[in-house]
């Protein structure tokens, strides 16, 4: 199982959002770090074909994802940065709706939804309208929908934003478990969230891939104390 990206580029008018990005993602947790405007979200949008690419290829197990179409999206779980949901639906309704879109049906879907609601600690709020949820609760619903259907490729855009410390610890341990059997891409600004779970770190800046390495190498290679220190050092070119 591998997701290969070759010379991927995308510009919005004059602004080059992504330029010649190439990398092969394999099972495990890959954290994509970078400042605002680095191209992290654009990369995620390109992978799930929510934005038209200009040049380059995205191959899943050797086949272009555009050619795979629906069969690629069937193995894809995506959690966008925006917490968009139908405000009047309950969390349970919303997950049921997303399950239908992912082709999950009947008792299997409902069992999985119940399991995910338990996992994200929303069992007691399952039948409340998501419009009344706090930011953290909405984030957990978004995470639950991304995990529906047990996807092989999981794209999580800022998954820990808005979560309280307890929830973040809980999520980290869960992501660590998930990463063993699937390709898991996480973009974040909070380096402490990925330091313990990420197998590899990609550093992006100005739409380009600046550095890619195993987490230990990323930190040790620049003589940093921790991931945050390494991130700042590498970004400053120290």
């Amino acid at each position, binding site marked *: 199982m591998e997701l290969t990206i070759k010379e991927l580029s995308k510009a919005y008018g004059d602004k080059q959002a992504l330029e010649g990005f190439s990398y092969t993602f394999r099972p495990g947790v890959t954290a994509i770090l970078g400042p605002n405007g680095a191209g*992290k979200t654009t990369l*995620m949008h390109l992978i799930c074909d929510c*934005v*038209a690419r200009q040049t380059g290829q995205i191959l899943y197990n050797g086949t272009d994802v555009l050619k795979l179409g*629906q*069969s690629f999206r069937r193995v894809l779980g995506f959690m966008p940065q925006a*917490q968009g949901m139908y405000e009047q639906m309950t969390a349970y309704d919303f997950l049921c*709706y997303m399950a239908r*879109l992912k082709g999950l049906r009947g008792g299997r879907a409902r069992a999985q939804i119940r399991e995910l609601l338990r996992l994200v600690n929303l069992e007691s709020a399952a039948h409340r309208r998501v419009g009344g949820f706090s930011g953290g609760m909405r984030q957990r619903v978004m995470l639950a929908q991304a995990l529906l259907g047990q996807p092989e490729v999981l794209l999580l*855009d800022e998954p820990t934003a808005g979560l309280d410390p307890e929830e973040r610890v809980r999520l980290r341990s869960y992501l660590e478990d998930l990463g063993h059997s699937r390709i898991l891409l996480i973009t974040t600004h909070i380096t402490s969230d990925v330091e313990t779970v990420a197998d590899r770190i990609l550093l992006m800046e100005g739409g380009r891939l600046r550095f890619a390495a195993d987490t230990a190498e990323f930190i040790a290679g620049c003589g940093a104390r921790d991931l945050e220190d390494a991130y700042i050092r590498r970004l400053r070119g120290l």
Partner: protein
Amino acid sequence: MRELKRIFLSPARLLLLGGLLLACIMLYLAEDVHNPGFYRRYEQTLAYYRAHPRRSAAEEMDRELAHIQTLALLWRWDHGDDVSEFTAEELSMYYGEDFDLRLQTGELQIPDSAMTYLFRRQEVLQSLRDLVQYQWDYPEYLNTVHQNAAQMAAMSVFSGQSGFSAKNIEKTDRDFPTQVRLRLDNNLALEHLVSDQLGTSCLLVYVLAVVLAFLDERRRGLWTLIHAAPRGRAGLALCRAGILLLAAALGTLVIFGGKFVAISLRCGGWGDLSRTVQSSPAFRNCPDVMTVGAFLRRFFFLKVVGAWLAGLIVWAILQGVHHLPLAIAAAAVLLGAEYGCYRLIPDSYSLVILRYANLFALVDLPALSLHYLNVNLFGEPVRGTMLTLGLMPPLALLALGANLLLAARKKPVSRENPVLSLLDRLRRPVSRLVGRLSLLGQELYKLLWLQKGLAVLLAVGVFCFAALEAPYPDTELYNTRLAGLSASMAGPITQDTLAGIDEKLTTYAAWEQTEAVRAQTELLRELKAKVKQSLAKGDGAWLIAQAGPAALMSRQSTAQGRKNGLILLLALCLLLSGLFAAEPQNRITLLLRGSPGGRGRLLRTKLLAALLATGLLWLLFALGELRALVATYGPLPLRAPLCSMDCFAAWPAGISLGAGVLGYLLLRLLGLLAAAMGVIVISVLCTRINTAMLAACAALVLPAALSYMGLGLFDSLSAARLLSPMACGPWTWPLAALWIAAAAWALSRLWARHPVQSRARG
């Protein structure tokens, strides 16, 4: 000052005020029930008769009206109508005994154009004659009021001085004047103004929109911020109460001022403002003697104060409930209950006091004052309108105080609302049920429940089964002269039918040959010829009552048909505008597009859901119209061949009328689906539901509304025509089908666009 600018210069509210003014004036102009040129002729005729004493004016009018009536009878005679019940006495009376001879020699032939003029003249004269008669009778009416009071007081059941009835009689006697000086003048403008209901509703809508704008901080999550600001509590509320008063004044000035000008231009002014209002029959039961000028000043003043008070009360309710949707629901329930009390309680009920102690009475007080009624207030008779007037000052103080107190004391963060907790508990089983639905079921749930489509369908259902009237039969579709006979002999055409006609002819031949019998015999012969022709053709036609089918399948684009079409199009826009626009509004497009079924499958499912909802709308309307048709014209003979109708005589015999009706209704469904595709295409192009709704209304409802208002230019642009299939040309339907296919293709292309077009983040 900033709050003032925020409220009054908001484009949405400016647009709303402009739209309300436009709607008020356009609908007023469209609602004219008179012949063209009526107002000009009325003014001219009034100017002529104004100088005459009442008696001589009435006599002259009576003479002219009798003359026109006789000419009308002659004209109808000339057109072959049965006027036998009039001719013998009335025609001879006017033209003498030789009128038959004069008619035969053509000496009495009256051209149609002259008759059109005379009918219009008759309408004006009759209106003025009624006015003169009213003014003549009014002193007698006042006398009767006072005499009745004296007589009833003498009767034993009313004689007890302590009872409400006795006091009521005394009060009525005291309230009504003994004499009022009346003047013959143009009262049309005054009557149009006081009978207006739409203007009052529009004023209320504008004031409520301003009140809702006061709650913007709750909607935008700024309540805590405003509440924490030094002048964000009672000070702000006081300032807003002032703004509300200004809004009531502005709304009255724009809506009623605009209407005042429109009425004035149409009716030729307001007449002499110093005449008493009782000069108009509309004020017959109004005991307050005042001039028209004083009434107009009072009208505008009361509208402003009433609208302000109504706004203050609704604002207090909205402020009192923490949760905004719940607050709006509470206000809607109150307004519904108040409206019910205002409209539905009969005069004789003791609860009638609720009509006057009512929010709508505050806004509609000038119109309410035309109706004299004393209510029982603790055993004392109190004039209803005086009760409303008396309640105004304490209500204003109370509502203002409540608003200031709520603004000062109500905290932005509150305990969990028990109603919401209850709703959450009730939602649980529904949520479980929804979770079991297929994707189509979920889309229907979104469309009908979350986007309130069900409320639209319910409203249409109530309209269809409570207010929809049967259309008038299109008299060009069948021979109206034979309609009664055909209906009385309804059934398949056989030799027996022919025998039946012959039998009747024989019977009539034996009777005295009066005009009526001769006319009936003529009609029977005509019917016999038709029956013979049908038997010779062997098309299996029936004799049927054709009025019902001819009403359903009218070729005319009637005002009623245009109105129904307008309502259906409006319902369609409200129902389907959110179909696609809800996704970007909820910022969920990315999520949908990233899921396996979020592209082609979702598009197909959404389309299917929309078409099902449109089908439901069509079905409701079709059933409602058929119900009204059957109630008015009797059951439709659905088993009869379609060729039984005169207009379909050339059609093959194998097609039944039922199939014809079904085909007609299916064509209407095709028209509705074509309009629905228009709304859906607009929905996919918009990123907000309200924008999509406005755009769809501008594209579909506005041309239909302008066409309904009589602007012929918009007849061909109005999609409402599609809902009257017989009024459309034969190419309309292939074009409609082509449009549906093209729109479906365009939708698939638009939906296939990448949701992120010009954003760069992260």
